[in-house]
């Protein structure tokens, strides 16, 4: 009988376990991502019916730095080319997030919860858990790639293959990055955060490179894996060799992951935890919430400030590239600006910060859920701590933290832009009511239906997708209006700001939060 190498014993069983545990999350994520990409040609075709319209649109997009920053340059004005432009980076980011979640979930999270110990005591090799996790990510990314190839083959088989490989390859690259991060830290949350931060850096680099230079030629773009996705030029003289870069990077990351995994003990990490104080100063539930969340908030805040400064630095020079192109102006105005193009660029970036801040708000609110299901809430609430105080502490961090992050992003934009700090801060802070609405929805879900609290991610994801892909697709206004971000004033650049929607959204957030807290007070604490 032939046996697998002992280091890999049990990989098959662990892979089946991983696929079984992810049997809902994985198919949903893959289908949604594939659907977003595959539906693009039809949606774009209804907006730009003729080749002439598409050519004009492509020219104006390429001339517009804020559009380039978000989506990259247009390399071909075919429907396939426009699809790769509009949904390529977005799809790659979705694949990356899915992959990093899968890998951390089946490696570090298993060790952190102690489940891996029981598994590893069985016939499971030292390298089996990591291998199984990477294979699970490979299965997911392969399925995504096949769906994309199948759905876009009508636009040209080579282009469809190139785009599918770029998306799946980016997924595997961040699976590899997550495999490394999972070795570095003892906390699954930190491992996911590190990998997501890397993804954020990749996006900022790509955006900065593309905003400043046309045609994806900037060195900054080439440093970023997300820049490779656009530089594969799917549906436009595919440059297959760029995929080799991706393959090499995946190999290097996975190799590093294995190297580190082979050199540590189960449950241990390369960034070991130090002893803490023998006596503590924490005395309230609010202080505990702050203590638990402050590190994450500091990371997000630093990221927002830096990204703001980078984007602010790019804001100049947006106006000269465009000239008198009406079409581009129209598009940008729909993207979120009404005045000068610099203002439009800053407004677009402020909107981007708002949507990302909503993701933070959801993660910070869902700490409540993690505390509860991790059985840490129960003994805490057995003390003289009311549920409202407990939840209020975490909500204060979530709502206040998103305010702080947006303030810093606005400061960064203003400083990078060289002035007008007041205007940029106002622009980013104007996003806050919509961010709070999303956070409040998470609070309501946790309060009312704790088992489905994670649906808050779907809410935030839908708002993000609507904001990201909606404006260029001629979606009905009613659909766009579902996102709270659709009701915000375009800042900077709007002369007379209407306060009514801001106040209405804030009131809505307050009402949803109150409803969530009321439901939390009435229900059982789940353990």
């Amino acid at each position, binding site marked *: 009988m032939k046996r697998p190498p002992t280091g890999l014993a049990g990989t098959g069983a662990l892979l089946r376990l991983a696929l079984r545990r992810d049997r809902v999350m994985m198919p949903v994520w893959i289908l949604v991502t594939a659907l977003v990409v595959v539906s693009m040609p039809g949606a774009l075709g209804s907006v730009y019916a003729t080749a002439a319209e598409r050519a004009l649109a492509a020219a104006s997009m390429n001339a517009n730095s804020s559009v380039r920053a978000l989506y990259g340059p247009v390399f071909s004005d075919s429907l396939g080319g426009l699809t790769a432009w509009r949904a390529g980076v977005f799809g790659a980011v979705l694949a990356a997030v899915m992959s990093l979640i899968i890998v951390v979930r089946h490696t570090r999270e298993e060790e952190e919860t102690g489940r891996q110990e029981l598994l590893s005591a069985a016939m499971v090799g030292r390298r089996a858990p990591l291998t199984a996790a990477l294979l699970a990510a490979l299965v997911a990314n392969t399925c995504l790639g096949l769906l994309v190839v199948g759905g876009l083959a009508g636009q040209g088989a080579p282009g469809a293959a190139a785009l599918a490989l770029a998306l799946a390859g980016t997924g595997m690259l961040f699976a590899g990055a997550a495999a490394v991060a999972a070795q570095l830290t003892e906390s699954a949350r930190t491992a996911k955060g590190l990998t997501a931060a890397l993804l954020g850096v990749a996006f900022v680099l790509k955006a900065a490179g593309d905003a400043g230079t046309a045609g994806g030629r900037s060195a900054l773009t080439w440093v970023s894996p997300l820049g490779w996705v656009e530089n594969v030029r799917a549906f436009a003289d595919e440059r297959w060799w760029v995929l080799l870069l991706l393959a090499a990077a995946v190999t290097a990351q996975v190799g590093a992951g294995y190297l580190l995994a082979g050199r540590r003990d189960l449950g241990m990490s390369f960034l070991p935890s130090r002893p803490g104080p023998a006596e503590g100063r924490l005395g309230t539930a609010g202080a505990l919430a702050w203590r638990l969340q402050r590190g994450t908030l500091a990371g997000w805040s630093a990221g927002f400030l830096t990204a703001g400064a980078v984007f602010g630095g790019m804001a100049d020079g947006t106006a000269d590239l465009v000239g008198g192109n009406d079409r581009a102006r129209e598009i940008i105005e729909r993207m979120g600006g009404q005045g000068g193009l610099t203002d439009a660029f800053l407004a677009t970036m402020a909107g981007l910060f708002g949507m990302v801040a909503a993701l933070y708000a959801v993660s910070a609110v869902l700490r409540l859920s993690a505390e509860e299901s991790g059985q840490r809430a129960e003994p805490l609430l057995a*003390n003289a701590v009311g549920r409202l105080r407990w939840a209020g502490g975490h909500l204060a961090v979530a709502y206040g933290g998103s305010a702080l992050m947006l303030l810093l992003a606005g400061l960064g934009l203003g400083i990078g832009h060289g002035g007008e700090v007041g205007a940029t801060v106002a622009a980013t802070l104007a996003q806050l009511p919509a961010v709070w609405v999303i956070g409040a929805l998470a609070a309501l879900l946790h309060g009312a239906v704790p088992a489905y609290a994670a649906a808050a991610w779907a809410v935030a994801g839908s708002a993000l997708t609507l904001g990201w892909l909606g404006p260029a697709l001629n979606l009905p206004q009613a659909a766009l209006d579902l996102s709270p971000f659709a009701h915000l004033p375009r800042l900077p650049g709007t002369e007379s700001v209407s306060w009514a929607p801001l106040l209405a959204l804030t009131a809505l957030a307050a009402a949803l939060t109150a409803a969530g807290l009321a439901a939390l007070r009435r229900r059982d604490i789940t353990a």
Partner: protein
Amino acid sequence: MTKAISVVGLHKAFGRTRALDGLDLSVTAGEVHGFLGPNGAGKSTAIRILLGLLRADSGVAELLGGDPWADAVPLHRRVAYVPGDVTLWRNLSGGEVIDLYGRLRGGFDRARRAELIERFELDPAKKGRTYSKGNRQKVALVAAFASDAELLILDEPTSGLDPLMEGVFQSCVAEARAAGRTVLLSSHILSEVESLCDRVSIIRRGRTVETGTLAELRHLTRTSISAELAGPPNGMAHLPGVHDVEVRGLKVRLQADTDKLDAVLRSLAASGVRSLIATPPTLEELFLRHYTDEADADATDNSDSDSEASVR
């Protein structure tokens, strides 16, 4: 005598599972009360209701004279709780958690905290994840015993403790009782229950099946007797309260209901006793009888339904 805990007819269902099915529990202030039952009998559910974490479907629960759901926060100032499986925040040290819990309970004794850390041999500077199971329990135990709480609710608090620490735990409970505090102790360690508890309640399938002092419970059980007699035994089997009589020549083995011992001994003495061994029931036997009754009850249920089926 004031009641620290008074529960009457408590019901709680999770979906179709009936976790509590008319539970009664009465704990007198100042006593150590054992709370026993097989796994899944509903002990932890009852404790969570008493802590206001779960809401009862019906029935009455009173904790220190208050409603555990409505008055949760003020009541918790007077209550300390140790769960059976303590989870700590990975980046907080044990000392920080002890102090946090102390403050959240409305005060604790610094000197007692230091003394307890010493006695439990706990390193308070380690971070949450690095503690072993037993050490995590110690963190919660130190926090509970250092508090000024008048009621301690301990849900299998010693799981994972070594025998030495088990001893420390027992002396801490004894000191708590001496200080006039009330303890509700859920435990599967019967020696612990035997040496600590003034009274016990045994629950099964969400219902109380037995409650009383250990002596009272023993009274309801059988003593095994084996004797060597001078003459042949006479009518032993027909005495009330005598079971499983086994006679081999002059040797007799039997089980006797403890409250019927008098008559049994008289009957034995009538035949002349050469040697006598009487073994009172161990606590183990006492509980096992209650625990295994469940399996018996299941069997009876099944045979009932079988017979019904066969009648049809």
